[in-house]
């Protein structure tokens, strides 16, 4: 019955207040970027949840996969010295 398409998918990122990072909020369907922005506003910011919006075509996003979660991230595993609490600083206040 529905042969017509629901248009490409866009991922929506919202910034809650000035200085805050943009966070993923969800997605919308839209035929172009203007429509994606308007739909994102209507769906994800009906109560001033955003002061700024990004929309990105879903297919343009490259993501790491759960399968390579271990080997991809493990170079960071044995480098505790990248954290300040690795170091002994007897008596000194920081």
């Amino acid at each position, binding site marked *: *019955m*529905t042969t*017509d*398409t*629901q*248009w490409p*998918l866009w991922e929506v990122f919202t910034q809650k207040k000035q200085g805050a990072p943009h966070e993923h909020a*969800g*997605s*919308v*369907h839209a*035929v*172009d970027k203007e*429509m994606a922005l308007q739909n994102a506003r*209507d*769906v994800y910011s*009906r*109560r001033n949840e955003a002061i700024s919006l990004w929309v990105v075509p879903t297919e343009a996003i490259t*993501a790491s*996969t*759960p*399968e*390579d979660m*271990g*080997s991809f991230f493990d170079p960071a595993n044995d480098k505790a010295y990248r954290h300040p609490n690795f170091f002994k600083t007897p008596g000194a206040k920081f």
Partner: protein
Amino acid sequence: MSIKNLTEEELEKRFHDRIEKGEIIEPKDWMPERYRKQLIRMMSQHAHSEVVGMLPEGNWITRAPSLRRKAVLLAKVQDEGGHGLYIYCGTETLGISREEMLDGFLTGKAKYSSIFNYPTLNWADMGAIGWLVDGAAIVNQTVLAKCSYGPYSRAMVRICKEENFHHKQGYEILATMMKGTDAQKQMAQDAINRFWWPSLMMFGPSDKDSPNSGDLLKWKVKLFSNDELRQRFIDRTVPQAENIGIKLPDPLLKWNEAKGHYDHGDINWEEFYNVINGRGPCNKQRMKQRRDAHINGEWVRDAVVAHEEKKKSEKVAA
């Protein structure tokens, strides 16, 4: 540890261990096919329910008794559409397209909540829906917000924030009417008489007759059984009813000190199954309105696509 070399059984065991530990499953994670299928069924039905839910209330927008009530109802109905969109987008992460879901909905293959097959006969019904129907939905959705599937859980967190407005605006309508004339009080009482039992049915069949509950509980998609959530809703709602002097139409409703819960009368499950199976008061009308809206919007969708194609071809020519 790489999961690439694991067998299906090992993967399933690993999945269940993750669920047991309270980990959240994300779209690209390995999941059993049955988990994926049950979630698609449950989430798409939930999305369809939000969309159909716009119809009984949309019915009263033009007849709201004041500009304030009208603006509120309009915002509420718009929220319901938004809720449908949050959940559709969450469901799409499981690998089903929006087109497939819409197709299931419009052909009647997919179900939606039985409550929306009841008619809204007068203004007090807007109060009853906000207070009881959205109240029941909040009880369900607050728990779903802690479910094991990330995109569903995040959609529920967002929805719960908005449902509280729906719930309170409904209660305010009824509280106002209960302070009005005898005719207004009667109208409010009549709405509750009609919506109380169908609202209890929203939690689904009794635990002993709920075919999907076992798996859903095991996978932590559901965290409580249908009957537990129903009880939670009743316990919460009775004092609110007493507060405005409205009666809930169940002569067996009584506080049980030993249990710490309200006892209640039997639900008419025959009515419930009739309504889900297409024989409720408004099933045909709701489906027709939904299909008509889809068909009547087709020229708009076509025009949008035509415009986009024209823009693209102009770009190529330039």
